[in-house]
């Protein structure tokens, strides 16, 4: 690849000066970054076989083109390896998809983060964590890919806290919020195969505008209905109305209990959809819907999402522990929906 890299260059004496420059220019997420030198950026571009000026995505609301060069620079800064670049690119394609609706989740007071779910062989090959300590620090792939996405949002799209990002609380997942599905131990069809008909040998990312994970506990039940009944009772918790998606992350013990009853992901989705409704009366009493409670409101049920298919079921998390979690999506179905994108790896 010989095409010119056109970004402005800054001469620095040493690493410390490079770091100071990045901080002073507001280019970091608060943590130190890897100085983006041309050789490192070229290695990123080579990994995806893209010219620097190739447009990865276009954010309509901001009228910003995201070029391969800028993605590569930010991926270097985030600490990515060149092998991570195809995953970062796919995630960015996902959040630029009109269905994801970038402007809302990126800027809203509602404080969504970009949940990235990695599926397919690339997850194992690059050691994306899908097990113990699923959302914890310690895995380079999980840590840097999500960080690269956020740095692109900040440095390229202009999603700056306090300016075009007005999150009331923000979100710890805005540092990174990446997991892989535990396909090796899962008894179920992988997420990317279910959602867009990928082959299991394809790799893909699913991006969802997501709130924080909420853990639930059930050590008592040995049935699918028992475990998922606890989930529904927790998931139905007030405050969530009209969410576009929920991601339900089932960890080892619960995964095995549910699978032992022969339930598929479709069975799980159906059960959750049918057993997590709230009455209109409840929403009105808790001031989540306007108006006085009418007698018919007591029996008018509202599901948590429009369709069972809006519930993303993922097998991931530690093998031990009677815990699983769910992740509410941000806002409403017309505002943002989860998008799955195939990871385009460069053929050798």
């Amino acid at each position, binding site marked *: 690849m010989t095409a010119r*890299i056109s*970004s*402005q*260059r*800054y*001469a*620095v*004496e*040493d*690493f410390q000066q*490079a770091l100071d*420059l*990045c901080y002073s*220019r507001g*280019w970091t997420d608060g943590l130190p970054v890897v*100085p*983006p*030198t*041309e050789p490192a*950026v070229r290695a990123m571009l080579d990994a995806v076989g893209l010219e620097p000026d190739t447009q990865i995505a276009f954010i309509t*609301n901001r*009228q*910003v*083109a995201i070029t391969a060069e*800028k993605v590569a*620079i*930010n991926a270097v*800064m985030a600490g990515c390896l060149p092998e991570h670049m195809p995953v970062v690119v796919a995630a960015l394609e996902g959040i630029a998809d009109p269905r994801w*609706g970038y*402007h*809302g*989740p990126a*800027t*809203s*007071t509602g404080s969504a983060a970009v949940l990235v779910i990695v599926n397919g062989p690339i997850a194992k090959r690059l050691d994306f964590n899908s097990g113990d300590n699923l959302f914890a620090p310690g895995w380079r792939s999980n840590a840097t890919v999500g960080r690269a996405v956020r*740095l692109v949002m900040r*440095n*390229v799209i*202009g999603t700056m806290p306090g300016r075009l990002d007005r999150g009331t609380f923000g979100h710890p997942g805005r540092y990174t919020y990446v997991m892989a599905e535990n396909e090796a131990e899962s008894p179920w069809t992988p997420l990317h195969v279910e959602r867009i008909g990928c082959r299991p040998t394809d790799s893909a990312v699913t991006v969802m505008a997501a709130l924080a994970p909420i853990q639930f506990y059930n050590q008592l039940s040995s049935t699918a209905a028992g475990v998922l009944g606890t989930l529904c009772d927790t998931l139905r918790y007030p405050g969530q109305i009209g969410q576009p998606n929920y991601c339900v992350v089932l960890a080892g013990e619960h995964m095995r209990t549910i699978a032992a009853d022969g339930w598929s992901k479709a069975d799980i989705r159906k059960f959750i959809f049918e057993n997590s409704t709230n009455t209109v009366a409840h929403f009105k009493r808790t001031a989540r819907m*306007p108006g006085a409670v009418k007698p018919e409101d007591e029996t008018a049920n509202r599901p948590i999402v429009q369709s069972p298919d809006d519930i993303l079921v993922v097998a991931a998390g530690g093998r031990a522990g009677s815990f699983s979690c769910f992740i509410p999506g941000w*806002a*409403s179905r*017309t*505002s*943002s929906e989860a998008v799955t994108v195939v990871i385009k790896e460069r053929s050798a």
Partner: protein
Amino acid sequence: MAGFEILDPTVEPRRQPLTYVPRPDSLKGKRVGLVENTKFNSDRLLQKIGVILKTEYGAADARMWRKHNSGVPAHKEILDDAKQAVDVVVAGIGD
């Protein structure tokens, strides 16, 4: 360590000229469009604004459109309709 160069990770916003249509001197007899952004009570707020523009400023009429959601611009149907049906538009964001 020898000196080296680092690359700028940011993008300069693309500059483009924006022109506004001239503001009317008066709303008297003007047809007013109201673009509602789907947030709670934004329709009620805009309805009241429409009434005020008619009763206090002499606007001829006020009609409302609803966006798909608050995070997107007004869609094409709204723009096409508004071009035909109104002289001025009030677009507010309620939160």
